[in-house]
């Protein structure tokens, strides 16, 4: 996961970069922003899976960042860092679309668990989307195969019909001319097994 951590305090940013990153799987990457403004600037040009943002910052707040993400980055989730014991701001953040929140002082072990939760969620969403796309792709592929087969069968049936039309009439002992016979054979010949195919299938 690509994670953007937003905090205007340098010590907290250092904590994220130097401690949190070590606690996460190696494929996870932490990036930092020093303000809500910088976060939004980054989000305009880069895709992040998660944004962890402080709620109260000078300038744009965590809720502003959240609002931007909810409007512009559909697959990105937000964790808001709230003040200690501030149930109301936690509720407001959740209500406005944060996936989760964590209280200050941030317990990294807990944050890791919350990120794991989120990883679970993204994995499930991605999995569903992949199944849906795979289904569509394989439906198109099968329909094409079915169409080709039906067309092949239709052509053979047309040739057979034509052959019947050429020999229609009362059954009698009148000999069929060589040209006529060749005409009939000529209709059917393209659909015969080629010698090299015979016995193959």
């Amino acid at each position, binding site marked *: 996961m690509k994670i953007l951590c937003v905090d205007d305090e340098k010590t907290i940013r250092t904590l994220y970069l130097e401690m949190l990153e070590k606690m996460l799987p190696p494929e996870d990457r932490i990036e930092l922003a020093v303000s809500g403004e910088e976060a939004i600037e980054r989000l305009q040009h880069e895709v992040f899976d998660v944004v962890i943002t402080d709620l109260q910052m000078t300038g744009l707040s965590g809720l502003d960042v959240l609002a931007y993400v909810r409007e512009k980055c559909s697959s990105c989730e937000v964790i808001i860092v709230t003040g200690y014991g501030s*149930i109301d701001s*936690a*509720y407001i953040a*959740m*209500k406005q679309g944060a*996936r*989760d929140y964590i209280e200050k002082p941030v*317990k990294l*072990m*807990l944050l890791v*668990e*919350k990120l*794991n*939760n989120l990883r*679970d969620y993204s994995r*499930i*969403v991605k*999995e*569903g989307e992949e*199944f*849906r796309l795979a*289904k569509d792709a*394989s*439906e198109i592929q*099968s*329909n094409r*195969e*079915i169409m080709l*087969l*039906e067309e*092949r*069968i*239709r052509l*053979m*049936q*047309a*040739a*057979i019909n034509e*052959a*019947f039309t050429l*020999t229609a*009439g*009362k*059954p*009698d*002992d*009148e*000999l*069929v001319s*060589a040209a006529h*016979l060749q005409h*009939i*054979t000529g209709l*059917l*010949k393209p*659909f*015969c*097994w080629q010698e090299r195919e*015979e016995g193959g*299938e």
Partner: protein
Amino acid sequence: MKILCVDDDEIFREIYRVGLEENLPDAEISIAASGEEAMELIDDGDFDVVLTDLQMGEVSGLDVLRHVKRMSLTTEVLIVTGVPSIDSVIESMKLGGRDYIEKPISIPLLIEKLERIRSYRRKVAEAERYRLEKENMEMAAGLKIHQLEYLAQEIKTSITEVCRKLSVAGKEVSRRGVQQILASLKPFSSK
């Protein structure tokens, strides 16, 4: 959503009952007064979410959580903690707990957390549905392709046989003879 609320404190059981019934009218709420009772209900019922206090009498919330995870692949657990004890919260999440909330309970916040769990479960169900749809579609298409291939081969074999007979018959063949040779293609002629 079927929710089981577990707390040994009657006041909290009442808070859950009233708060959830008021805010989640479509939810089916069950209540247990102890970990033991919760485990019995979990054995019999198929809950979507179990909301359990951490510190209770003999059987703790973590025991309930372990029991849920043993019994069901799909039931989610939301832990409630009285004294803020970050270590047990972290342990509960490592054991498969989905989320936690601290006492005193804020019902609006609890509802938001339950909604998150609901949306997670919905995504799980959705992924499963797409997976099944994909499998069913592929099976049906595979069968149809197989049938068409078989039919095409059958026609091809019959046509090959007819051509062989026509060439053996040579020049001295009557209309009746040709009709007899072609008769084997009758089932494949379209209307």
